[in-house]
């Protein structure tokens, strides 16, 4: 018997189809990452400086690194590269080759580490080049984004999730006479140092020890990433002669500064002691002293 399709049942079936599609996409997406969590780790933690099969960037191409080095060596190097460069010949020569750039310490869990090494090995063996999946802006850059990015950078506008303004730790060419903070490197030429996808990845998931901690619970929103990115890209145009600032070991102490500071402090104290040398004197003591023959 012929059953006419009622309005009601039409919607019912449409809803079913939509649900099925969503489910499929969800399963596929989950499967995509579920299959290889190492890709995600590499993308967020390593890709801004390293390629697999695409040539050297700030750091060396990691193709075949799992064959060149032992697993223990790799794990130790990834977690504490600077410390290792002081005691290991190979690590030291790597640091020398890429000087003044250093590799910041990476805090990875054991699972992340294992999956990362597995992914590098798989990709190296298959000869496939790593391409990031998430390094995209949510929308194209508009003209007004540069200004908004500047406001975010300088802290005139707060990050929605409470992140610290960039200028707290970073200087930038167009920032103004006092400059920004000096804890992190100057960011004027940062869009020369990093290519667009790398820079976007850093903004999405900062992978420098200090920034990782500071932004763990205060991620930038998609909109903010677009705006800050736009501003960082723009700043090089404003000051075209800026040099690329290397990532340096923030724990390193310059002895000359310490010594100078110490010497000036001592000089200042001696000077104050001279200027106020009579502060412990008293009237009676002076009178008695004067009367002595």
């Amino acid at each position, binding site marked *: 018997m012929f059953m006419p399709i009622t309005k009601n049942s039409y919607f019912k079936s449409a809803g079913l189809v939509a649900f099925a599609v969503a489910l499929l996409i969800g399963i596929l997406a989950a499967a995509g990452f579920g299959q290889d969590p190492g890709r995600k780790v590499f993308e967020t933690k390593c890709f801004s400086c390293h390629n697999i099969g695409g040539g050297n960037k700030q750091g060396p191409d990691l193709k075949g690194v799992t064959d060149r080095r032992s697993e223990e060596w790799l794990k130790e190097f990834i977690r504490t590269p600077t410390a290792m460069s002081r005691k290991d010949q190979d690590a030291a020569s790597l640091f020398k080759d890429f000087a003044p750039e250093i590799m910041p310490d990476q805090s990875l869990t054991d699972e992340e580490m294992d999956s990362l090494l597995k992914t590098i090995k798989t990709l190296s063996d298959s000869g496939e080049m790593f391409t990031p999946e998430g390094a995209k802006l949510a929308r194209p850059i508009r003209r007004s984004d540069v200004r908004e990015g500047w406001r975010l950078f300088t802290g005139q506008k707060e990050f929605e999730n409470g992140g610290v303004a960039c200028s707290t730790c970073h200087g930038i060419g167009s920032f103004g006479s006092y400059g920004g903070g000096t804890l992190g490197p100057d960011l004027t030429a940062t869009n020369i140092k990093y290519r667009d996808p790398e820079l976007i990845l850093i903004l999405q998931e900062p992978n420098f020890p200090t920034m990782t901690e500071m932004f763990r619970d205060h991620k930038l929103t998609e909109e903010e990433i677009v705006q800050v990115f736009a501003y960082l890209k723009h700043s090089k145009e404003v000051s075209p002669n800026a040099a690329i600032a290397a990532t340096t070991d923030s724990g390193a102490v310059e002895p000359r500064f310490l010594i100078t500071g110490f010497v000036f402090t001592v000089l200042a104290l001696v000077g104050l002691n001279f200027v106020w040398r009579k502060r*412990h004197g*008293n*009237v*009676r003591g002076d*009178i*008695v002293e004067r*009367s002595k023959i």
Partner: protein
Amino acid sequence: MDVRLQTSMVFHLDKCIGCHTCSIACKNVWTDREGAEYMWWNNVETKPGTGYPTAWEDQTKYKGGWESNGEKPGLKMGSKSSRLLNIFHNPDLPKLDDYYEPWTYEYENLFDAPEGADQPTARPVSMITGEYMEIEAGPNWDDDLSGSPVYAANDPNLDALTEEQREELFDIERLVFFYLPRICNHCLNPSCVASCPSGAIYKRGEDGVVLINQDKCRAWRMCVTACPYKKTFYNWSTGKSEKCILCFPRLETGQAPACFHSCVGRIRYLGGLLYDADKLVDSVNVPDGHLVDAHRDILLDPHDPEVRKGAMKNGIDERTLEAVERSPVYKFVKEWGLALPLHPEFRTLPMLFYVPPMLPVMANTEDGVYDTANDELFSPIEKSRLPLEFMASLFSAGNIDHVSLALKKQYAVRLFKRLETVGDIDAETVRVALEECGMDEAEAEAIYRLTSLPTMDERVVIPPSHREEALQMLNDDMWDEKGKAGLGSRNLPVRGS
């Protein structure tokens, strides 16, 4: 006219024997406490001498009192902004060594010492650290050293003398000194009140006693610098400053302050004075030489009906006015011009007045012969052993006329009474002496009576302060205050609160 009442004092230095009973009475009542060991709200100094704390009169060092540039008096310690800059480190404070390190003796050792070859001794022990110490100074050190060249020679008032006069003064066998007992002057223009950043110091409306509120004091110690007489003291234990309270709990119950009560020489007089608060600022804006006159000018005659009307308008009670009429201070200061303020050039209008002492030459030594015989009964005051310039530097900001008159009057009174009781002087000499200082016989007799024969009730005429009226303004429930007297705050002073 803004008539106000001040309980004020006269110390008759010609009668002071320097026994320090007043100091001990005060110490036992008020400053026998931890943190107050070094304080002497009442102290007796030997003059010439540097006093306590050492050279307190030298305001180039201590920056106390007011300065006047002819327009408006300002604190010598600096403007408001400079005081604020120094608020955490006030540079012009006397050190503990300028007062003295208080000590006691290890008396137990005299009883508990083990048997040995030597006599046990009671070594001096610091009352601050509890350790053995060498005594280097005391609260009346120049007295203990009998006007030693160290302390006596550094008296700031000696600057008023010529080199020759100074040399004569320190000649052997010519050495001369007198005593200067000091308490808080309860000034009309108190610089300690003006300097306090916490607003803790105030002058009581009903009797003008200057007090430090122990609940409000925050230990800035600006008052210690600002008071030119160095009569506010910092208590290191409670973290509050303290000063002479003129024994107000005693005054309120009609008793003389402890130092007045115990005075052996009966040199202390207390009574009310009425003054015109409207003229106050102008009276300190005059040149040094006119300060004493300006000070006397603001004091009002309690017999004047206009003054009485103004007093009543300001809430001064009829019975209080009766007491003010009998005030011995009014007679000494205003009627007779005998009593002078101590260092009026500090411009705080001190309300403790001093009758300057006579220091006549009583004998001469010639060729080794000690000769008590003198041509005259007393040597004229111009030949006093302490030059008039020294007295003027102390009591009249350099104006010799005032000290000269005060001494001549005392001289004339002596001659007048000598003629009456012994009769060995020429009546004409007495007449000339009286005339010279513009005094009649009645006045001479009155001065004699109040100087030599006053009873306690004549010396100390406490104007009833009518605390009940002051309390009524603070507390509606008068019955709650009935029978109460004395210290208002019963909280122990606590550092930092």
